[in-house]
């Protein structure tokens, strides 16, 4: 058994949903006792792929496996057995749900029906529980499109469609705010004994997670434009993503500007025997001699601009001549902020993450072998994050719950 997490002793009753599953995982992996309530036969989200062994059945959904770690499952038919749900909610510190606005009220099972003084009730819905768009249909794609992220993502060529970043991020963003708001409410309840209702809008969550896009409009009424592999910006910036010699991409980060930067570039080129081939190298030497360049202050100085451009070109040249991983490491060892475009499974196997113990093995008795999962989002000194059990089978804990 892992040591108790920071939320040990808190019980969360979660109605299985596509909106709130990640918030439940956050709380469960931090030690809360999360009971996920499914209809008999299993939650609709068990139909979301991919599937273990490509077996399309409720016990093999990897979506379900991933977002329901550390939880227990009970099956309740809310319409036929509302009292079972009422009884379970009486044992809860937090209720977490992502039902359509009005759906629980129609069953007499909404927050106003079931509240008790100390209960915290979190609703995660596409547009919030009230308001003009509360009843619109939405998916991850339409939410990211309508709430800002898609406008900023894609390619320099604007005849190509903008892009939705992958990985169910609408749920992740809303889920992070939902979990955090629930913990704020727990701290308030610790002090006062008073619970409350929390209304989380996925659309609002994405709207305030756009970095420069919203703020540039709010403050200056200017519009950022998407660019390949880098920040959307009001004015175009130079490309940073480079195809390395092994067909993988790297990102070169901020261009070199200081005298040290140019010195290091020269040494690096020389070390690889590429100095002569990079025939613009005299400009790097000038960069050293003049003590670096300042892309803003030196704007309009043709020589400084040439030096600045050459520094960037040298990084691109090095990246195209090296394999992606050695480039990333060599650049970072020389203090250049650079990155390699890993796939998620390559990230999980990256030596740094492995050294920190990030990949974790989770027992899957039905599968007959453990499965490697992404591990702790942060390392807590006293109360470690942990996947306490694999995601539950349908109704696996019907006989155990409810209880104190």
């Amino acid at each position, binding site marked *: 058994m892992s040591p108790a997490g920071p939320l040990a002793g808190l019980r969360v009753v979660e109605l299985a949903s596509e909106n709130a599953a990640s918030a439940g995982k956050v709380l469960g992996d931090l030690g809360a006792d999360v009971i996920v309530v499914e209809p008999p036969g299993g939650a609709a989200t068990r139909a979301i792929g991919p599937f273990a062994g490509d077996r399309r059945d409720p016990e093999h959904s990897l979506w379900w*496996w991933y977002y329901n770690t550390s939880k227990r499952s009970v099956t309740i038919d809310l319409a036929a057995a509302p009292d079972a749900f009422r009884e379970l909610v009486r044992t809860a510190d937090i209720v977490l749900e992502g039902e359509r606005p009005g759906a629980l009220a129609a069953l007499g099972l909404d927050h106003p029906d079931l509240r008790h003084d100390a209960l915290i009730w979190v609703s995660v819905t596409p547009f919030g529980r009230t308001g003009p768009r509360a009843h619109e249909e939405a998916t991850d794609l339409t939410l990211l*499109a309508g*709430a800002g992220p898609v406008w900023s993502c894609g390619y320099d060529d604007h005849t190509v469609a903008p892009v*939705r970043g992958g990985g169910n991020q609408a749920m992740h963003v809303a889920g992070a705010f939902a979990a955090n708001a629930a913990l704020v409410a727990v701290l308030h309840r610790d002090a006062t004994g008073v619970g409350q209702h929390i209304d989380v809008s996925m659309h609002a969550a994405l709207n305030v997670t756009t970095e420069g896009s919203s703020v540039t409009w709010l403050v200056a009424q200017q519009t950022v434009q998407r660019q390949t592999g880098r920040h959307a910006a009001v004015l175009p910036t130079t490309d940073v993503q480079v195809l390395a010699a092994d067909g993988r991409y790297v990102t070169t980060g901020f261009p070199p500007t200081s005298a040290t930067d140019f010195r290091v570039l020269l040494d690096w080129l020389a070390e690889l025997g590429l100095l002569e081939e990079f025939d613009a190298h005299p400009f790097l030497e000038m960069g050293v001699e003049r003590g670096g360049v300042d892309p803003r202050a030196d704007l309009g100085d043709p020589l400084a601009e040439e030096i600045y451009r050459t520094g960037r070109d040298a990084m691109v040249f090095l990246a195209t001549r090296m394999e992606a991983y050695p480039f990333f490491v060599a650049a970072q060892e020389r203090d250049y902020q650079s990155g390699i475009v890993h796939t998620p499974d390559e990230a999980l196997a990256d030596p740094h993450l492995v050294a920190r113990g*990030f990949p974790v093995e989770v027992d899957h008795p039905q599968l007959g072998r453990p499965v490697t999962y992404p591990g702790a989002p942060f*390392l807590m000194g006293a109360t470690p994050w942990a996947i306490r059990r694999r995601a539950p089978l349908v109704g696996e804990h019907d006989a155990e719950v409810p209880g104190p």
Partner: protein
Amino acid sequence: MPDVSPGPLTTRAPGALSAIRVCDLSGQLAGAGATRFLAAFGAEVIRIEDPVDQGRWDIIRGGPPYVDGRQGNDLGGAFNNHNVEKLGVTLNLRTARGRELLERLVAVSDVVTENFSAGVMERLGFGYARLRELREDVVYVSNSGFGHTGPYVRYKTFGPIVQAVSGLTFLSGLPGRPPAGWGYSYMDHMGGNVMATAILAALVHRNRTGEGQWVDMACAEAAVGFTGPGLLDATVNGRPQRTAGPRHSNRDERGEWAPHGIYPAAGEDRWVALACRCDDEWRRIAELIDEPWTADFSAAAARLAEQDRLDGLVGGWTRRRGRDETVKALQAAGVPADRVATPQDRVDDDPATAGWGLWPEVEHTAMGRVRVDGVPAHLSETDWRIERGGPCLGEHNERVFCGLLGLRRDELAELAEEGVV
């Protein structure tokens, strides 16, 4: 130790976190975003900045956007956005007197936050062991790209590096093209959110046990956690993601839906996103399109078998119509659809953001009244409040050093002379 009682410095009604004081050495967005959330619920967040470099360690401080083009170190629009409701003080931690004042501040703080590179706090003399001596139950949360241990401990990152290394960049792109990635520091926002989770969870634990702790967060690891089900396809099914076929991230994750994507609308750079999740939704889309070819695609199997051709035909239809006209018709038909909203669309012309109160206006001492991001959760008893702008450099020195730590005004003036504040 100060001989004044460290009471709250604000006079307004208490929020859920009014009893929490945060000594905040963090900045940029990954750190500032975390403490912003706490401040919106009433936590007293005291941001420490360096008077020597005028707070420019935080590269956002004097950066764009600007109100009316007015530039300056106290006029950065993004800095204001990320630091609303915080107090700002200056402290030169290279001086003994500066370090002593930080010690006194830590002693009266519940939480210490920072997002320096690994090792910086130790070099300043404020590693966890020292922080604990100053405040035994301190919750100390570090947020850096790669964390405080491991082979990349010295490596430097910002959002796009974290996104690349974690796999998020790879997951964003269209077939036959390079990764598109994220057009902003998504992981600075989400890193801040995860950091806030760490702080709040540690405070919940402290409330129950009296025990504080150190939390070492590596943003790149938090990011991998946002790629889950697809990653399990690799670890469970032995299907490496690099060779699993081209990414088509406007379709991906829901391979059973078609059409499902982003389609051109009339006009320049105008787009419609739509998702068809079942035959019935297709029937409603086909009624709107009202063209004979739609009959070929009444079954999901047919739509999936020729998804590229279907996308071309749907795109042909959307291209001839106005974006908002198409979106309204689809929404009225109960089909999930939305415009690819421009910043102006969603800030100034979306009843859902307006109705939420999503863009509160703050009063900033130097910039005047400015709109900022709100919080996407409304709490029935202790809702967030964002009214005060981000701090000008050292704006609250007197309030914090005299009001909280009990310095006399002439002592503060002396410290200013000496370059300590």
